[in-house]
């Protein structure tokens, strides 16, 4: 395959995953939010995990970034996007390191990504709203563990079943 072909294929793959990611973000807005603002399933993280394992870290960054921008334009408000950016940067960094260490399964990587994402969100809230926002961290972390584990299991199943993607891209 020529390098041009490879690039085209990569753009198509990233576009496809971004679309799935975005759709999962939309599905999330339909789910109830357990009474706390910012509580979400984080289903989009399944896509990011998939990209992280099957494509490169940069593909995961691109998919995450485009998703946040799309989400902001279509559903969101600016403060939501700022929380998301903070969370996503930290979360991607943590997931990248844990994946690279090779000592964790997708469940562990997803758990850490979720927890660090929550931490980033609360950090952004503390900067914007004051230290009172720190009170949100414990419930977010506990709920984030549950959703992170679910996402990690789903990502693991998908990675196991979807063959012929990624490393051949």
């Amino acid at each position, binding site marked *: 395959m020529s390098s041009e072909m490879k690039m085209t294929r990569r753009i198509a793959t990233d576009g496809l995953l971004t679309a799935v990611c975005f759709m999962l973000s939309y599905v999330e807005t339909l789910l109830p939010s357990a009474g706390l603002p910012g509580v979400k399933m984080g289903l989009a993280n399944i896509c990011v995990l998939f990209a992280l394992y099957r494509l490169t870290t940069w593909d995961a960054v691109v998919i995450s970034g485009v998703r946040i921008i799309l989400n902001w334009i279509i559903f969101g408000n600016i403060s939501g996007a700022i929380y998301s950016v903070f969370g996503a940067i930290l979360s991607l960094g943590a997931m990248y390191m844990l994946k690279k260490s090779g000592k964790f399964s997708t469940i562990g990587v997803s758990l850490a990504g979720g927890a660090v994402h929550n931490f980033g969100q609360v950090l952004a809230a503390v900067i914007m709203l004051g230290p009172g926002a720190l009170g949100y961290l414990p419930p977010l*972390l506990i709920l984030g563990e549950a959703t992170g584990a679910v996402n990690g299991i789903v990502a693991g199943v998908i990675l196991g079943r979807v063959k012929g993607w990624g490393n051949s891209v």
Partner: protein
Amino acid sequence: MNKTARNDILLAVAIALAAVAVFLIRIFPAAPAQSCEVIHAGATEAVLPLDGNGVYVCGSVEIEISDGSARIKKSGCPEQICVKHKPISRSGEAVICAPEGVMIRITGEGPDFVQ
């Protein structure tokens, strides 16, 4: 159990502990200092912090602060009702020694006596 599964569980436990730690750190400084207000003949005579220990003398009345609660230890009054009153520690609780015109009252936020 394989190694990655064990690491996953350790990670989950670590995150849960971090959550609990943040929760506890948030709870403890939130317990605000309470104090015992001494009112004599209708005017506030002293405000004693409840976290200290000691005895405050107001006329014939001795007020003792210990273990986060306040009580009237001695009084020159005939009935000694105030001395028999249990120690007080919650906001809004009070002990009154009517003959001596002394009242002690817990002020500040924290565990509230008045529901």
